[in-house]
């Protein structure tokens, strides 16, 4: 940076100090030694000092023009939910990339999909794959839970504590592939397992259903069905009655989570459930009590799932990211984002 500029562009500069440095002086991008040198230079050149002062006033003026004003009617300080949701989804994705070895891309994809759904703010079916048997599997699952939402299923007395013969665990064990070895523990979210059942599926394939309840009596129903997708994490949100339902699938199973709580609350729970399922499927050891406490990932203030940020470790190789496509959730209210 030792160049200087043509006389016409900077009339007052006699070129004994590089114009670049004068600009850097205006922008406060000089170290203290050079700043002192420039100030000494300007002391004997009032015209030049006035020119730079004018530039500095421009910077201040730009802030006066464009900075959000406090009390502005448009509430500029708070970003619109669609932007906050997209930013949260992007953060989740970046956090995933920074975490060597332990990446759970499918889960993060799910989180991104949820965020996009929140951004879209749309009820009803979204982002279902257009064709193929996987779609059928997911659709029939959701239809099934829709027909039997939180039906009284066989009570399993102190199911979570007994650890005895458990039909859902047996059902899970019978599924092919890396399926979770145990039912998700949602105690950390305040939900206890109340009942579990294996239901005859609509198309002859059994499905497992778990019912949870918290102290306030709010109920959650998680339904699992074989027939996931090896490389898709298609994701849907539906609203029916006063309840909501999130449905998604991983490599081996399709899931549906239904509850009567608010959408963002259910979203938080769905995220935690899918995380538990991923963790459980990743490690064959059954973890009954040793759940990591910090996996809830509740996001305060916004409905955006924000993945906890790990310290960056740039020296390590990038994690092997699952190349499965990002959730194919279209944003209905805007044009589909185009790549460059």
């Amino acid at each position, binding site marked *: *940076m030792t160049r200087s*500029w043509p006389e016409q*562009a*900077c*009339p007052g500069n006699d070129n004994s100090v590089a*114009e*670049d440095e004068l600009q*850097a002086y205006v*922008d406060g*991008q000089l170290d203290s030694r050079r700043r002192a040198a420039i100030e000494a230079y300007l002391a004997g050149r009032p015209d030049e000092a006035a*020119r730079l002062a*004018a*530039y500095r*006033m*421009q*910077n*201040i*003026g*730009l*802030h*006066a*023009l*464009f*900075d*959000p*004003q406090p009390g*502005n009617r*448009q509430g500029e*300080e708070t*970003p*619109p939910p*669609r*932007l*906050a949701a*997209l*930013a*949260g*989804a*992007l*953060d989740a*994705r*970046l956090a995933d*990339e*920074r975490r060597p070895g332990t990446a759970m891309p499918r889960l993060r994809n799910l989180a*991104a999909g949820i965020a996009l759904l929140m951004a879209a703010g749309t009820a009803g079916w979204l982002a279902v794959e257009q064709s193929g048997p996987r779609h059928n599997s997911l659709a029939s699952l959701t239809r099934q839970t829709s027909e039997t939402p939180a039906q009284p299923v066989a009570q399993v007395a102190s199911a979570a504590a007994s650890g005895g013969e458990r039909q859902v665990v047996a059902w899970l064990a019978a599924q092919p592939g890396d399926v979770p070895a145990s039912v998700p523990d949602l105690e950390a979210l305040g939900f206890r397992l109340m009942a579990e059942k294996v239901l005859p599926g609509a198309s002859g394939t059994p499905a497992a259903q778990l019912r949870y309840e918290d102290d306030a009596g709010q109920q959650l129903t998680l339904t699992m069905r074989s027939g996931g997708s090896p490389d898709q994490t298609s994701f849907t949100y539906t609203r029916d009655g006063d309840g909501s339902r999130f449905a998604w699938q991983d490599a081996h199973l399709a899931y549906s989570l239904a509850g009567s709580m608010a959408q963002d609350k259910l979203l938080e729970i769905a995220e935690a459930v899918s995380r538990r399922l991923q963790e459980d499927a990743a490690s064959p050891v059954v973890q009954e009590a040793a759940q990591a406490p910090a996996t809830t990932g509740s996001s305060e203030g916004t409905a955006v799932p*924000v993945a906890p*940020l790990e*310290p*960056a470790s*740039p020296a390590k190789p*990038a994690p092997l990211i699952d*190349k499965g*496509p*990002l959730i194919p959730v279209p*944003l209905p209210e*805007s044009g589909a*984002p*185009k*790549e*460059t």
Partner: protein
Amino acid sequence: MAKTDTTVLEHLPGLRRYARALAGSAADADDLVQECLSRALARRQQSAEIRNLRAYLFTILHNAHIDRLTERKRWNYSVPDEALENLTARPAPQHGLLELHDLAEALERLPEEQRQAVLLVGYEGLAYREAAEVLDVPIGTVMSRLSRGREALRRMMNGAPMANLRKVQ
């Protein structure tokens, strides 16, 4: 140096602020930011490591803006109405109201490339290196645009509009 510990959410206000100054309307600006974030999200499928998240995001925002300029054949930049309304309500203590109106008008007449440099550096406070990355030009080009842009603004505000900077009708 590399701010890998910052988050997109933290940069969101800056992106919106810059987009508003760049695009000339709050609605356009948020569309631009949405486009930027959508592109970034789609791009993460194959992208390499990000060294500087802010520069990365601003680059995508900038490209989205350029694409938009290309789409619209005619483009007249104007300072957002809200900005001028805000001024009437509460002028900045360092400036007179007239002076700020002059600045807004001068900014509207500035060539797009110079305006980008002035806004990125002078308003948003990017380091020259970052601005060069965002604009995808050598750092010397950033310095040149910045220097010429500032001088043009100063002359216009001094009541000496340069003939070649007059709005072409």
